[in-house]
């Protein structure tokens, strides 16, 4: 058995001495898929980054060694030899990882040029098409810029880019969080069955993906690693009763004729939606069906071509900052890319403080004190001093949610906000959202791929071909 990756006694700590990883041993062999699970903030991403020779700001290695294909990624030469050739990495927050200025195809071509310099143009096109197919990425999406991809599509574009370089080690950090179950399944099987038999390290909260893909699974908790008990089958799915929006009922939010065009294509086509006071509605749909477009249009971040929005029967404009200037309602959007949603220069306490101040300025209050908000979202007061890049992916998502709630919005729009959380934390966050909408009567729109999340909602709608049904 050849140990491609050999981690021995790796310890990582912050500048202030807080231990992130504590004597971790990990061996990855060619052709094996290793799953890594554990609560949000346990150090999973730090361990994955260590294989690439990267540590987050303020972190340092206090003990231990990392060897990938016999090289030390913590040295400049080792990292240079490994990066892009031996190691492939798919990060969380896919939208931040693609170059927004280049079409997906250009970026895939560039990746192939690194792996196969001087290759024939026809071979290159064939390899790009194969990689796109393996990552379930439709061919017409290749012509798009990353800004015009949905979260799940961007994730698959990254996967395709990683496949092109045929790396011997593939590190996947939450690779399927933005994918619907069918696509996640297809992508998962593609990775478990790659012809050049790479070692795959899979960080995920999605137990169904882990059980399907991983040969063995480890749990990271409080900086220590241990073999995970045989994962139990995912709990039986309770489907929420699906019903059509009831226009007769006095609805708090109502949308009619919502149409969003992109060039010739209609992303949303004459869509109608009504949500009652305090109602929680789940919206599902295939990756790329326009769920995010819907939420961003409602939030006023991407005004649509046509349509009318009413809150409490009063018409509301489509532009968020115009709403804010004219004393209109605030519809909070919590998106898939929490890294982009948080100001990188700002510690958490200021982020939340600003949200509280803007609520107070408009005479609103979320009804929960600062400590209560933190507690409800499972955040530690110690996180208050940190900036976004010192938080884990799941913590960033929860800060973004906490900020939205603290600002006391009229409507809360959650776009896969819990996709990168472990089941226990996800449960806690959903509980907080549930409680909030019951206490305050704030309608919540939950965009999700997961049955478990959708089952928390009062009703579930499916978005397909531009309309909700």
């Amino acid at each position, binding site marked *: 058995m050849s140990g491609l990756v050999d981690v021995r006694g790796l310890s990582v700590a912050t500048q202030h001495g807080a231990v992130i990883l504590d004597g971790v041993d990990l061996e990855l062999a060619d052709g094996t898929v290793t799953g890594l699970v554990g609560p949000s903030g346990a150090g999973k991403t730090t361990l994955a980054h260590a294989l690439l*020779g990267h*540590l987050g*700001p*303020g972190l*340092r*290695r*206090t*003990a231990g060694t990392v060897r990938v294909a016999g090289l030390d990624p*913590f*040295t*400049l030469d080792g*990292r240079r030899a490994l990066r892009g050739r031996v190691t492939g990495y798919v990060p969380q927050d896919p939208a931040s990882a693609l170059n927004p200025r280049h079409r997906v195809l250009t970026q895939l071509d560039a990746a192939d040029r690194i792996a196969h310099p001087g290759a024939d143009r026809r071979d290159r096109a064939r390899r790009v098409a194969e990689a796109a197919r393996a990552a379930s990425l439709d061919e017409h999406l290749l012509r798009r810029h990353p800004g015009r991809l949905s979260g799940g599509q961007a994730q698959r574009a990254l996967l395709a880019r990683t496949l092109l370089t045929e790396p011997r080690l593939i590190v996947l950090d939450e690779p399927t969080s933005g994918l619907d179950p069918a696509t996640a399944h297809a992508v998962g099987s593609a990775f478990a069955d790659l012809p050049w038999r790479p070692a795959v390290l899979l960080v995920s909260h999605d137990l169904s993906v882990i059980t399907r893909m991983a040969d063995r699974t480890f749990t990271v908790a409080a900086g220590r690693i241990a073999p995970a008990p045989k994962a139990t089958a995912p709990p039986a799915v309770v489907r929420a009763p699906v019903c059509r929006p009831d226009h007769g009922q006095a609805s708090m939010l109502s949308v009619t004729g919502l149409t969003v065009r992109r060039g010739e294509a209609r992303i949303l086509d004459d869509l109608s939606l009504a949500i009652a006071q305090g109602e929680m509605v789940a919206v599902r749909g295939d990756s790329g069906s326009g769920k995010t477009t819907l939420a961003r249009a409602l*939030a*006023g*971040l991407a005004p649509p071509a046509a349509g009318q929005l009413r809150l409490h029967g009063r018409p509301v404009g489509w532009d*968020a*900052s*115009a*709403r*804010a*200037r004219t004393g209109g309602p*605030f*519809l*909070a*959007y919590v*998106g898939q*890319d929490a890294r*982009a*949603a*948080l*100001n990188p*220069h*700002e510690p958490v306490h*200021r982020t939340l403080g*600003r*949200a509280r*101040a*803007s609520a107070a*300025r*408009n005479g609103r209050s979320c009804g929960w004190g600062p400590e209560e908000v933190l507690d409800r979202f499972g955040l530690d007061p110690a996180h208050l001093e940190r900036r976004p890049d010192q938080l884990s992916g799941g913590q960033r998502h929860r800060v973004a949610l906490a*900020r939205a709630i603290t*600002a006391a919005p009229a409507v809360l729009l959650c776009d896969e906000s819990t996709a990168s959380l472990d089941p226990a934390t996800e449960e806690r966050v959903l509980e907080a959202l549930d409680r909030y909408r019951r206490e305050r009567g704030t309608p919540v729109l939950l965009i999700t791929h997961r049955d478990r999340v959708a089952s928390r909602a009062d009703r579930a709608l499916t978005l397909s071909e531009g309309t909700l049904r």
Partner: protein
Amino acid sequence: MTRRTVVLALPVVAVLTIALAGPWLAPGGATTPVGSSFEAPTDSYPMGTDVLGRDALARLLVGGRVLVLQALAATLLGSAVGLGAGVWAGITHRRRLGLALMRSVDALAALPALLLLLLLATGAPGDDVVVAVGIAIVSAPFSVRVVHAGTARLVGTEYARHAAARGEPLLARVRRDIAPGLAPVALAEAGIRFVAATQLAATAGFLGLGAGAPTANWGRMVRENSVGVTMNALPVVVPAILLVALAVSLTVLVDRASVPTRLAPERIDRAA
């Protein structure tokens, strides 16, 4: 501050000290002849004499202050205008007003810098302040452009848009969402502009703008004494070197200050 930064800062500090404190250190009169033209260096006159037989060292010490002060004033003025106009045009919801402002800035940028300087100097001859204002006017449009582009990028970020959607006041958004991201850009741009302003101030001196003929000025020294460069090169070379040293080391310094420093991996290893 690392040792390397200190080393890089030395030339800047040295040139600025010579320029600002020079007039107090000057050994004798900078405008009275002490010998014949272009005499070689001697013990009492270490840099020799210039075209009119004046002490070149005294003129060097006296001639930097006005130039540096002009450049500094022009840079600060230009930055103030650039930050004010650029940030406002980038963040305002009155799109048309913002666009109109940018177009008028473009028109100003299209004016040839030297022509404008000459025009202003003819209107108010012999005034150093007018030269500084002129330099500020010709360099401000570039500042506005750079700051506007940086602001527009930051205004488009998710977090800035969320803050706008929450209805936060303009000044709070500028302070929290725009300023931290804009600071490196604005700093680097001001550094470049200071270097350009020094060159322009020297050019103004070279052309005889600002305070009249007998007054010393590094730019004017280069012009006056270039005829005698074969007999005594020092009155030309030394002010030129001082100007170049200031420009180069300042740009390097500003780059170091404005590029976010990351913890180098080698340093991580040493810690381990």
